[in-house]
């Protein structure tokens, strides 16, 4: 071996212009051919808008869920076997309870950082579904679901469904008094489905309630099957986002055929990684400082016991509210019963709502006859009817959510439960029909404010040097004017060292 290959300098030269990084890139590229694609990926442009951050909250709370969930699964025992508790939480000492409940109390009190992880997991789940709903509303009101993104909308609605199901499954696992009652209600809802209801309930629960297998089944569904499905769908959701590129709001230099924003590396990477840390940090703060679901206060589940003034997690609220206010209409005839008082609010209503969500892109295309590609987003005021429809559904969901607290409201305000019940019935029925015209009106007015709507295209009148007046039509929206892009300057610390004062002008940053 010659000396030339062993001196430090020659080794550096052999590695290429960028030293060790060049070497690693070369090694990988020779095997996988990643250089061109990798460069394109690092150059990928992400449009900047605060509302595009909502989906990131969803993604990062999902990350927190996965990490804290792995921790919890190491200590939780999915078993209904009855044990006598002798742990560090004295009020429960000597009580018989399921192993599932005992292990949950133990991981909260006896495992170091166990309570933090459990509360973070619960908070992350609530934030996960909450940010998902807000993200979905953003996509809806800005028309981001339109062609070519209908498939990603469908994946998103499926993810929401799975998230709600998995939230309920996880909420049930500790086998405490409150969640056990929730499972009992879920069983009764299954029973209420005509014709196949009893079979479904018996197969899912392995027999009549409570069965013996439900905790094991819920456990494997909650920690493996549903998360696996969700992981796959999240991957597909993001892959489609990369493939189809992000939508953007209209504005300076933004057209249907370009994307304006910051590059993936380093700007977006820095901001989004920082945001992951912020989301995880806020969840950890909540998990450490704000108590959630203190199951040791509820006690272990016994089918003949019940607690008072309890509500499910917030994302189940609309279902619980619907069950509370629906009248007691049961159908008995021809030797059969259809418990409409359960089937309609708990099976038909969510079926209709999610069916509507799935069908919306197709429905809207049918009404508007708009089959074009859309990469520029709508402002909510651009589409008053869509905005009003979305507002109506949100109003319905919000009033149903409030209806899940009828007893608490009656207690708190010292009003009769009957008054609260009837008020909520009226509000739930009326609110969508009030929200629709109000949202429609506001959208119309805002649209007109922009200089469009019923008004004509505005003209800009200029006077030439010869005193001649010239009227030229101007774009309806100030933002829609074609303006050449002006780069936003950024501080450059290398330039600071330069002795000569910099010449005036603008610097164009290349990517």
């Amino acid at each position, binding site marked *: 071996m010659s000396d030339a290959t062993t001196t430090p300098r020659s080794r550096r030269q052999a590695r290429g212009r960028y030293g060790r990084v060049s070497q690693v890139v070369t090694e990988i590229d020779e095997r996988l051919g990643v250089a061109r694609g990798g460069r394109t990926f690092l150059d990928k442009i992400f449009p900047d808008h605060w509302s595009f951050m909502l989906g990131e909250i969803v993604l990062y709370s999902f990350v927190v869920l996965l990490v804290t969930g792995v921790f919890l699964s190491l200590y939780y025992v999915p078993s209904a076997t009855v044990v006598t508790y002798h742990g560090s939480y004295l009020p429960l000492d000597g009580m018989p309870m399921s192993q599932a409940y005992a292990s949950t109390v133990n991981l909260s009190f006896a495992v170091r950082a166990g309570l*933090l992880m459990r509360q973070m997991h619960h908070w992350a789940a609530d934030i996960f579904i909450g940010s998902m709903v807000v993200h979905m509303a953003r996509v809806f009101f800005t028309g981001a679901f339109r062609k070519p993104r209908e498939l990603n909308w469908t994946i998103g609605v499926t993810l929401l469904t799975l998230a709600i199901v998995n939230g309920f499954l996880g909420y049930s696992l500790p086998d405490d008094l409150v969640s056990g009652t929730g499972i009992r209600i879920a069983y009764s*809802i299954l*029973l209420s489905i005509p014709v196949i209801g009893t079979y479904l309930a018996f197969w899912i629960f392995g027999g009549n309630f409570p069965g013996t297998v439900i905790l094991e089944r819920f456990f494997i569904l909650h920690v493996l099957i549903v998360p696996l499905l969700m992981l796959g769908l999240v991957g597909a959701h993001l892959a489609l986002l990369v493939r189809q590129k992000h939508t953007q709001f209209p504005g300076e230099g933004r057209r249907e055929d370009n*994307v304006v924003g910051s590059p993936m590396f380093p700007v977006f990477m820095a*901001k989004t990684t920082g945001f992951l840390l912020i989301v995880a940090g806020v969840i950890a703060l909540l998990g450490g400082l704000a108590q959630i679901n203190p199951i040791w206060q509820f006690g272990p589940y016994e089918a003949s016991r019940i607690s008072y003034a309890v509500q499910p997690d917030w994302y189940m609220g609309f279902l619980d509210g619907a069950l509370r206010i629906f009248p007691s209409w049961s159908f008995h005839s021809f030797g059969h019963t259809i418990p409409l008082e359960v089937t309609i609010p708990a099976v038909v209503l969510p079926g209709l709502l999610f069916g509507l969500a799935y069908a919306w892109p197709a429905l809207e295309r049918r009404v508007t006859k708009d089959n074009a590609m859309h990469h520029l987003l709508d402002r909510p005021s651009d589409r008053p009817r869509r905005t009003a429809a979305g507002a109506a559904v949100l109003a319905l969901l919000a009033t149903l959510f409030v209806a899940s607290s009828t007893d608490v409201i009656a207690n708190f305000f010292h009003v009769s439960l009957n008054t609260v019940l009837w008020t909520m019935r009226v509000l739930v029925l009326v609110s969508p029909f009030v929200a629709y015209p109000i949202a429609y009106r506001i959208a119309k007015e805002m649209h007109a404010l922009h200089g469009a709507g019923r008004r004509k295209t505005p003209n800009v009148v200029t006077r030439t040097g010869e005193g001649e007046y010239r009227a030229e039509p101007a774009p309806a929206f100030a933002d829609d004017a074609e303006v050449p892009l002006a780069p936003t300057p950024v501080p450059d610390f290398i330039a*600071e060292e330069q002795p000569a004062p910099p010449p005036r002008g603008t610097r164009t940053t290349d990517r």
Partner: protein
Amino acid sequence: MSEHRTPVSLRGLAADDPHLQGAARRPQLVERVLALSLLVGLALVVAFGACYWTNAAPWTLGATMGGGLFFLGVGLVGWGKYLMARGPFVEERHPLASAPEERDALAAALVERGGALVKRRRVLGGLVGGGLGAFGIVALFPLLRSLGPLPKGTLFHTDWRAGSFAVDQTGRRIHVDDLGVGSVVTVFPEGTQNTNRGQAVDQTILIRISNENFVTQPGRATWGPQGYIAYSKLCTHLGCPVGLYEQQLELLVCPCHQSMFNATNGAIPEFGPAPRPLPQLPLYIDAQGFVRSQSDYHEPVGPGFWERS
């Protein structure tokens, strides 16, 4: 070079350029603030380690870890937002759709290579399709059918029999002298009080409503000996335990969705979403004074289902 250093010096850009964001005008200050945030983050993350090591209270773990991650995140976001090249950069959006010829070529390949094959050998195609389809249906049997038993008649009966002793949760038989007027107790048929099925299906609420024989409905003349009446504790709405007894109003209340049943007239629902009265259990008091059931409930207990008539 002047003595006075401009707060920011950009290649080709004056410090008072109107394009500059307020924060970018003084990058040294921004850098210092971000460094402070990162430093606080780092300190808190280390503090988290210390708290964990010393097994400190759970809230300190959350506060140090959450605060640490939060401040690190703020520093990183600020670095990306204020001190990195922001553009705007432009990327062209190329249409995803392929050329029409390529699309035709794909369709042609599918139809001519695949479709033609199947058309020529219809029988084979049918057999493959039929076989896989049949397997799809048959495969449901182990997957679905093995999950649990068929409901059969199990939803129509409880474990109350003629002569079952009513016992409380601890297994003690209820004696006629045990309850005063206005008291309630949850009872089970003897032997089931600690079983899943006893807890979930057989649970019954025993009320002493008076000292006299109590008749709730015509045809139930003997069901309430010496003022003891018993109703299924399963709400007919969704099966929650009807766990509250309003003694003054003689109402049984379900805490889940606030159905209220009148205990005096056969538990007819007076309020809420429950559609049916709670089934009543016929009782008698034996020679020793123990409360026992005359028979099972005369109708299925709990929420409604399709097979219920």
